[in-house]
C-alpha cells in the first residue's frame, strides 16, 4: 500500500493515535524539564501543530480533479496555506513560553468534578439509544445536581420533571424535533 493510499485510509481513531504518539512523548519530556509550569500551554500548542501536520500530510492524498489545472488551485491549496501560516505562529508561541514571557499554567480547580459531570453527560447521551432522551436527560439532571451537592428533594424532582415537560412541548410538539425515544420504548411510539 503506497503512502498516499495509506493517508487516504486514515480513520478517526488512527488520527487520534497519531496525535497521541507525538503528544505523549512531548508531554513526558516537558514534564521532566524546567518548563513543567507551562506544560499545558506547550501541549495545547503542540497538539494544534500536530493536527496541522497531519492535515498537511493528508493533503497529498486528495484526489486530483482533472481539468482543473488552469485554476492554479486545488483542494489542497488552502489547507496548506493555513498550515504554512500555522507553523511560524506556533513557533512564536513556543518562543514566548521558552523565554518565560508567558504566565505559567493556572492551578487546577475541581477538574475531577468537571470530569465526572462530563462522563455522566457522555453516559447520558449513549443511553438515549436505549432508554430515550426523556428518561436519560432527567436522570442526568438529577444525578448531576446530586453530585454538585444539591439535596433539596423538591428541586431534585421538579427540575428534571419540568425539563422533560418543556422539551416535549417546546421541541417535540411546537418545533417538531424528533427526540430519541430509545429502543426500549420505540414500539410504543412507532
Amino acid at each position, binding site marked *: 500500500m503506497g503512502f498516499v493510499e495509506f493517508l487516504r*485510509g*486514515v480513520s*478517526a481513531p*488512527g488520527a487520534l493515535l497519531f496525535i497521541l504518539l507525538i503528544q505523549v512523548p512531548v508531554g513526558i519530556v516537558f514534564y521532566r524539564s524546567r518548563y513543567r509550569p507551562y506544560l*499545558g*500551554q506547550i501541549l*495545547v500548542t503542540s497538539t*494544534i501543530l500536530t*493536527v*496541522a501536520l497531519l*492535515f498537511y500530510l*493528508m493533503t497529498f492524498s*486528495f*484526489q486530483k*480533479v482533472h481539468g*482543473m489545472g*488552469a*485554476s*492554479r*488551485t*486545488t*483542494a489542497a*491549496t*488552502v*489547507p496548506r496555506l*493555513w*498550515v504554512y*501560516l*500555522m507553523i511560524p*505562529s506556533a513557533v*512564536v508561541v513556543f518562543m514566548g513560553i521558552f523565554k518565560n514571557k*508567558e*504566565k505559567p499554567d493556572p492551578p*487546577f*480547580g475541581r477538574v475531577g*468534578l*468537571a470530569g465526572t*459531570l*462530563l462522563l455522566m*453527560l*457522555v453516559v*447520558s*447521551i449513549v443511553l*438515549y439509544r436505549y432508554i430515550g*432522551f426523556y428518561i436519560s*436527560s432527567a436522570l*442526568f*439532571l438529577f444525578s*448531576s*445536581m446530586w453530585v*454538585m*451537592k*444539591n439535596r433539596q428533594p423538591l428541586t431534585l424532582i421538579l*427540575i428534571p420533571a419540568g*425539563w422533560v415537560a418543556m422539551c416535549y412541548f*417546546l*421541541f417535540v410538539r411546537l*418545533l417538531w*424535533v424528533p*427526540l430519541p425515544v430509545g429502543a426500549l420504548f420505540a414500539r410504543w411510539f412507532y
Partner: protein
Amino acid sequence: MELVTNLLNGLSILVGFQPILIITIGVIAGILGGAIPGISPSMAVALFLPFTFNMSPTMALVLLVAIYTAANFGGSITAVTINSPGTPSAVVTSFDGYPLSQQGKTGTALGVALVSSVFGGLLGTVILILFSVPLAKVALSFWPQEYFMLALMGMTTVATLGGANWKKAMVAVLFGLLINTMGLDPITGTMRYTFGVIYLFDGFSFIPILIGLFALSEVFSKIELFRPGAEIKANVTVSGWPRVRDYWKLKFSIIRSAILGTLIGIFPGAGGTIASFIAYDMEKRLSKTPEMFGKGSSQGVAAAEASNSSSVGGALVPLLALGIPGSATAAVLIGALMMHDLAPGPELFTKNPEIVYGLFASMFIANAVMLVIGLAGGRLWAKVTEIPQNILQPLILAFSVIGSFAVKYSLFDVWTCLGFGVVGWLLKRFGFPLAPVVLGIVLGRIAEINFRQAMMLGGPSMFFTRPISLVLFLISVASLLVPFFQARKARRAKKVKQ
C-alpha cells in the same frame, strides 16, 4: 416625496389590532427562537412559514421579518446571561456581555444590547428604505477577490480580539480555519479530512461548535471553581437597567456600528456575524478605553448588537432589489415571497409597492415592539443569573445537548458539541482565546471559495488590480500593522520614561 407617500401608505396597512398582534407574536417568537441555542433565525422563520399560507402577502412578510429582526436580539439574551450565544451573530455580544453579567451588571448588559439592537435595526431600516437600489448595485459589483478581501479584513480583527494574547490568537484563528477545511471541497468536491465518517462530508455543523466552545467550556470552567456550601450565585445582585444618559454616551458607537452592519449585511454570505466582528474591532480601536473590551465594556456590547441588528436591513437590500438573498434567513424569505406568488427583484417595487413599503413600515414597528417587550421581559431574563450554580450548570449542559441535536436531529452534532466543549475548556484554560477560533470557522469558507474563484478568474494579480480589492487589502494590512507599531511606540515611550 413619493417615498414618503409610499411609506405612509404602507403604514396605513398596519394600523389596526391584527397587524400589531401579528408583529407582537413575531417579535416574541423571534426573541424566544433566538435565545434558544440550536434555533437559528432562519430556522425560526422557516418554522412559521407554513402558518403564513393563509395570510395576505404583506402580513406574511411582516410576521416573518418581525421574527428575523427579534431573533438577533434574542440571541444576545443567552449570550449575556450564560455565555451561550443563541445565534451566531450574538457571539461577539458575549465577549463583553457575559463579563458584565459576571460583575453583577446583567441589567446593564441586557439594556445596552436591547437598545443598541433596536436603534441599530431602525437605522438599518432607514438605510434600506433610502438606499436599497444603489446599495444593491454595489453588492453586484463585488467580484470574488473583493469578497476574499472582505473576509481577510474580518480576519484582521484577530489582532484586536487577541489583545495581549495575540500570538495565541493567531494560532487559534488558524486552528479555526483548518477545522473549516474539513468536509467536501466546495470547488472540486474532493473529500478532505472526513476520516471515513459520513457525517463529516459537510464538515462540522457550526451551531454545535459554537455551543460547545462557548457554553460547555464555560460550564466546565465554572464547575472547576465550584464550592458547595459557599455557593456562588452567578450574580449576588442584578443591577438596574441603564439610564437614558448611559445610552446617550453610546450614541456614536451605535450609529457607526449600525452603518457598518448594514453595509456588510448587503453582501450575500457576509451577514450579522462578520458585521459584528468588524464593528467590534472598529469600536475597540476608536474607544478611549480599549483595555476594557473583553472585560465588560458597554461599548463592545453596543457595537456587536447594533451591527448584527442593522445587518437585517442590509440583508434585505439584495433580496428586495435584486432577488438575491443576503443571508440564510433572507433565503427563507424568498420562499415566503414565492409562496405568495411574488417575484423578488426590482419589479416588486413597481408592481407591489404596498407590500414593500408595508414591510419597511413594519420594521419600524417591530423594533419599537421589541423595545417594549425587551424592557418588560428584561428582568425575567436577568433572573437566570440568580439561579444557584448546582442547578444552572446542569441545565445549561442539558440545554446544550438538545440545542445541538435540534440543528439536524443528529447525535453526531451532540458529540461535536461535547468534543468542542472539551477543546474550548482546554484552550481557555491555557490562555488561547476562543473568539478567533469562531472567527476562523465563520470566515474560512468565504475566504477559500472566493480566493480560489479569483485565482481561477485571473491569478494572484486579480487581488491587486481591482481598486476596491486593493483598498480592502490595504485596510486589512493597516489593521494588522497599526496596533503592532502603536504597541512598539508605547513600549519605547515607557522605556524612555523609566
